[in-house]
């Protein structure tokens, strides 16, 4: 099945790279993304980029943004462009198709985030390094790697679920955008809705928590969400039903 998953990933990435007309257009888009998130934003922040938890927040948020912009196309795009029936009539197993699409989306978001974080490190050193090497702390570095992977998994899992049911790419993209907005806005409103003393205690706990504690808590939450979404996606992916749709 691993070979089949790689085959799906190969096709998904190939389509992603040529979606703007040709390979050059696709690569240009990647360069722009890395330029904005790996050079512009880190340079605006300066040396604090590698020293504060800001890079960690970017590490968790960036894959959500990147993956949600592409994963909506996965099944809804195949359905809209009338390629899904033929794909389902092939010898690929349900798992290979599903995992291939999820892996392609995760690989894209995770890979670009890691490349951006690496480029950011180079950019910050070139601009502000002077006579010392600026590096992420081990926990922030590990946090970027782990949280970006799990963040990409969250976006890919929810995106696949939306895309499985949506009849058009536009519909899938709208639903997914709404879900991502709710996901990022709800915690803020939830925090504000808490009683004052709870809010103070929670804010104090976050301020006093170490980077390690924050990374572990966020990672556990994301892992649970990822596992849940993957299980739902596996249950919802029914070949016969997709064919009839």
């Amino acid at each position, binding site marked *: 099945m691993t*070979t089949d998953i790689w*085959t799906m990933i190969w*096709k998904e990435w190939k*389509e992603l790279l040529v*979606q703007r007309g040709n390979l050059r257009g696709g690569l240009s888009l990647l360069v722009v993304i890395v330029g904005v998130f790996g050079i512009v934003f880190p340079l605006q922040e300066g040396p604090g980029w590698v020293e504060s938890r800001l890079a960690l927040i970017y590490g968790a948020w960036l894959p959500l943004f990147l993956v949600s912009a592409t994963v909506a196309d996965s099944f809804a795009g195949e359905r809209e462009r009338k390629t899904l029936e033929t*794909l389902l009539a092939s*010898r*690929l*197993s349900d798992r290979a198709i599903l995992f291939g699409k999820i892996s392609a989306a995760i690989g894209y978001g995770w890979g670009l985030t890691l490349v951006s974080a690496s480029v950011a490190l180079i950019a910050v050193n070139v601009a502000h390094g002077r006579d010392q090497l600026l590096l992420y702390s081990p926990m922030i570095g590990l946090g970027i790697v782990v949280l970006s992977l799990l963040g990409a998994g969250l976006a890919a899992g929810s995106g696949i679920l939306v895309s499985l049911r949506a009849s058009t790419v536009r519909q899938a993209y709208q639903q997914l955008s709404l879900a991502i907005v709710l996901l990022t806005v709800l915690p803020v409103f939830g925090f504000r809705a808490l009683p004052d003393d709870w809010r103070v205690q929670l804010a104090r706990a976050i301020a006093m928590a170490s980077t390690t504690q924050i990374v572990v808590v966020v990672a556990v939450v994301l892992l649970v969400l990822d596992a849940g979404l993957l299980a739902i996606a596996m249950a919802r992916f029914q070949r016969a039903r997709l064919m009839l749709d």
Partner: protein
Amino acid sequence: MGFDTRKQASEIRQTTGALLEHPGLYERLSAEDNLEFYARIWHLSSAERKARIMELLTHLGLWERRKERVETWSRGMKQKLAIARALLHRPRLIFLDEPTAGLDPIMSAALRDDLAALVRHEGVTVFLTTHNLAEAEKLCQLVGIIRQGRLLAIGHPDELRGKGGVSRVEIVGRGFGSGLLIMLQSRPEVATAECQDNRLVLELRGETDIAPLIGLLVSAGAEVEEIHKDKASLEEVFLTLVQEEE
């Protein structure tokens, strides 16, 4: 092939190929990448993939344009590419659903020729689903007529034409009087008989031997110069079968 369609879907998919209602091609990818993707799905080795893609695209006259994005191609070229994709893994059976639908007559004829040549070359059985009965007549050795899920008839096109429809005979000559017409119309094998100037047009039921009828005409005093016999088309057979069904 002996598979159970409800329990062995995976085995059926492994040994068959399909061109469904839509070509199902990734239009943003090149023709070569489309075939490469499906060749990888069928686990062909790298060398096999290259050779097979070249063989099929060359056979269908598409090799020179293999690097172009499929979205720039005509409908006919896309259909050919989709047929090549269905044949990639050398299946024993391929299903083609309306392969010439939406094509102009010239492209349809070209695709039919290519398809027939390719099938001979590959030695594969083709299950063709079509509403175009003329196409079925040209391409198929065995035709089944299905209406609302029921198989109404099955057989070689010639056999079906003889079985269900009427055949039309045009006789050119002289002496086709009204008495002769009445006599012909009374015969069970004659569906209709009409005289137009010096032409007698008969529609006969099933596979009727016309020699006795000609003998009858001559003995009744008619002079026969030419005889043209047309078999019923599959379309006429289909309509007859449907009428009988109703």
